[in-house]
C-alpha cells in the first residue's frame, strides 16, 4: 500500500470514530431515535476488509452498520441525515441507524434481523454468478449471529452452490450482553465453517493491515472461483451492544485492556514508520472533525420527509 492509501484508510477510521462519538451525543439529546449500535473499537475491521474489495464487489452487514457504510464510501452527510430521519438521508429517513444502504456503492444494507442477511448475501452472490460478474459478496455479521439457523443454512447453500461469498464474522466477544462462551458451543467461530468444508482464516481485528491482508487473500481465493471463504476478525466494541447498555456483564479492566490495542492508535506508529509525518496525522484529525461537523449541520438543516412520503415506495407498481 502507498502512503496515500495509508492516509485514506486512517482517515476513514478517524471519521468513523468521530461520527460514532457524535451519534452518541445526538442520541443522548434525543435527536437520533430507535436502536443504535456503535462501531467504536471495530473500525479496523470494516475499513480493512472493505478496502480490499473491487468496485463490482458487494457489501452487506447487520445493524452495527455506520462504520461499514463509511468504509463503503457513504457520504457522512447522507449518513447523518438518515440518522436524524431526514429526507436527504440515504433511505429518505425511512431506515434509520440500523438500515443504512446505498445501491450505487453496492452497499446492500444494514439489516437488523440477526442472521437474516446471510441468506440475502447468498442471493446477491448467486445473482452475480448467474450474470457472469466476478463480483464477490462481503457479508459482515457478529459472533452472535453464528448461532441462528440462517447462518448454517447460508453457509451450506454457499458451499453447495459454490457461491462467491466472503463470510466475515466480526467476533467482538459478546452477543448482546452474553459472552461467546456462554452462547456458542465453539468459541472460535471459524470452526463452524469446517462443518461446511469452507476454508477459514482468523486475523487481529485491531490491526488494520492484518485485516487488509487477510481480506485480500480471502477475496482472491473466492474470485478465482474456489467458492466461499470464512474470515473471523477478532475485535472489540468499546461501547455497549446498543445505546443505553449499562449492564455490568464485563469489567472496566477488560475494556481498558482492549483500548490499549486501539486500532487507530495502533496504526499511527505504522504510518510514521512508513514515512508519514505527525503533522499529516494531526491534519487528518482536524479534517475529519470538520467533515463530521459539516455532516451534522447538513443533517440538521435538512427537511423532514414530506407527509406524502408516507405512502411512497410501498410497491413499485400500485
Amino acid at each position, binding site marked *: 500500500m502507498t502512503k496515500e492509501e495509508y492516509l485514506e484508510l486512517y482517515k476513514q477510521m478517524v471519521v468513523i470514530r468521530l461520527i460514532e462519538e457524535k451519534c452518541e451525543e445526538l442520541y443522548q439529546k434525543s435527536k437520533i431515535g430507535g436502536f443504535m449500535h456503535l462501531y467504536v473499537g471495530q473500525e479496523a475491521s470494516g475499513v480493512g476488509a472493505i478496502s480490499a474489495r473491487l468496485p463490482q464487489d458487494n457489501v452487506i452487514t447487520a445493524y452495527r452498520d455506520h462504520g461499514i457504510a463509511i468504509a463503503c464510501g457513504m457520504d457522512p452527510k447522507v449518513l447523518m441525515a438518515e440518522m436524524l430521519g431526514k429526507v436527504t438521508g440515504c433511505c429518505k429517513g425511512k431506515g434509520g441507524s440500523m438500515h443504512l444502504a446505498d445501491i450505487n456503492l453496492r452497499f446492500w444494507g444494514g439489516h437488523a434481523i440477526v442472521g437474516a442477511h446471510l441468506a440475502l448475501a447468498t442471493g446477491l452472490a448467486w445473482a452475480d454468478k448467474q450474470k457472469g460478474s466476478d463480483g464477490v459478496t462481503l457479508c459482515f455479521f457478529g459472533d452472535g449471529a453464528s448461532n441462528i439457523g440462517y447462518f448454517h443454512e447460508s453457509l451450506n447453500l454457499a458451499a453447495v452452490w459454490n457461491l462467491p461469498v466472503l463470510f466475515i464474522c466480526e467476533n467482538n466477544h459478546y452477543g448482546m450482553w452474553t459472552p461467546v462462551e456462554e452462547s456458542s458451543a465453539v468459541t472460535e467461530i471459524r470452526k463452524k465453517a469446517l462443518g461446511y468444508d469452507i476454508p477459514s482464516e482468523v486475523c487481529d481485528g485491531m490491526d488494520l493491515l492484518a485485516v487488509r491482508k487477510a481480506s485480500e487473500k480471502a477475496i482472491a481465493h473466492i474470485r478465482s472461483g474456489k467458492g466461499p471463504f470464512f474470515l473471523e476478525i477478532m475485535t472489540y466494541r468499546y461501547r455497549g451492544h446498543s445505546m443505553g447498555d449499562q449492564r455490568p456483564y464485563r469489567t472496566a479492566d477488560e475494556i481498558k485492556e482492549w483500548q490499549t490495542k486501539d486500532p487507530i492508535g495502533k496504526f499511527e506508529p505504522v504510518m510514521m514508520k512508513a514515512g508519514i509525518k505527525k503533522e499529516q496525522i494531526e491534519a487528518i484529525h482536524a479534517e475529519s472533525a470538520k467533515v463530521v461537523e459539516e455532516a451534522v449541520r447538513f443533517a440538521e438543516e435538512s427537511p423532514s420527509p414530506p407527509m406524502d412520503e408516507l405512502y411512497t415506495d410501498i*410497491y413499485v407498481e400500485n
Partner: protein
Amino acid sequence: MSVLTMSKALAQAMYEEMERDPNIVVLGEEVGAQGGTYGVTAGLFEKFGKDRVRDTPISEGVIVGAAVGAAMNGLRPVAEIMGINFAFLAMDQIVNHAAKIHSMFGGQFRCPLVVRTTSGGGKQLAATHSQTPDVIFAHFPGLKVVAPSTPAEAKALLKSSIRTDDPVFFIEHSTMYSERGEVSDDPNFLLPIGKSDIKRKGKDVTIVTYSKMVSISLKAAAELEKEGIDVEIIDLRSLRPLDLDPVFESFKKTNRAVVVEEGWKTFGIGSEVATRVYEECFDYLDAPIERVAQKEVPLPYSADLERAAIPQVRDVVAAVKKVL
C-alpha cells in the same frame, strides 16, 4: 385455447416467461430434474438447465432469503416452497425482508420475487400439513398475495406475478392441481393483480370467496338455483391488494352477503370483508353477513373429521339461506 390441468397451466406460465426473460430463475426443493413435488416445474430443468432451475437444500429460510438477495441484485426468482406450512420457516424472509426491502431503504432496492406455495386441506395430511393460513400473509403492506381459482387464471396471474417488480406470495390449492380448464395459448395474455372477478351473476345474495372455495360456492349456487335463489359469486383472486369495489357494487344490489373461506373464521378474510361492507354499504344492509369458514380446530387426519372441519357445499347453502 387448450385444455390444461392447473399444474400444466402453472408450468406453462413459467416456461413462457423464462423463454422471454433470461433473468427469471426457479429454485426450491425438488424443482429441478424431479419437476417439483406437485409436478408444477416439470420440463423447466430440461429446457433451461440447472443454472436457471435450481434444486435447493431443505432450508426454507435461505431458499427465500437467497431469492430476495438475488431479486435485489437483478434476477427475477420464482421460489417454490413445498407447502404453506413450511412457509412459516421462511416467514421472516417473506414478511420482514421481501415485503419491506423496497420501502425501508427508501425505494433503492426492488424485490421482483414470486414465492409459490400450496395451501389447503383435504388430503388427509393432518394438522401441520393441511392448513389454509393464507390470510396471515395478506396482513403485510409491501407484499402482494395472489390465489387463483382456475387453470386459466392461474397461468395469467402467475405470469403477471413474475412480471411485476414487487414481491408476490402466490398460493395454489393442494387439491386443485389436476383440475382441468381452458387456458389461453397466447404468451402475452395476462390478468392484472388486484382485480376481483365476478364468477357468477345473480341478484339475491352476494358470495365473496377465492381459490378452491369458488368451485364449492358455484356448486352451492347450482343447488340454490333449483330453489329459485340466484347467487352472485365474486372471486377475490388476490388478497392483497384487496379489490372490494365489485363486492360493494354487488351488495348494493343484493343487500345480503356470505363470505366463504377455507381457513379459520377468527381474524379471517370474512372478518375483513364483512367489516368493509358494513363500513361502505351500511344503508344497504338487509341481514347480518354470514361467514363460512373452517371449524376452529387443527385439521384431523381421519377423512370424516377432516371433511367435517372444512367448508362443504351444504355449509354454503345453509349460510345463503340464513341471510335471506
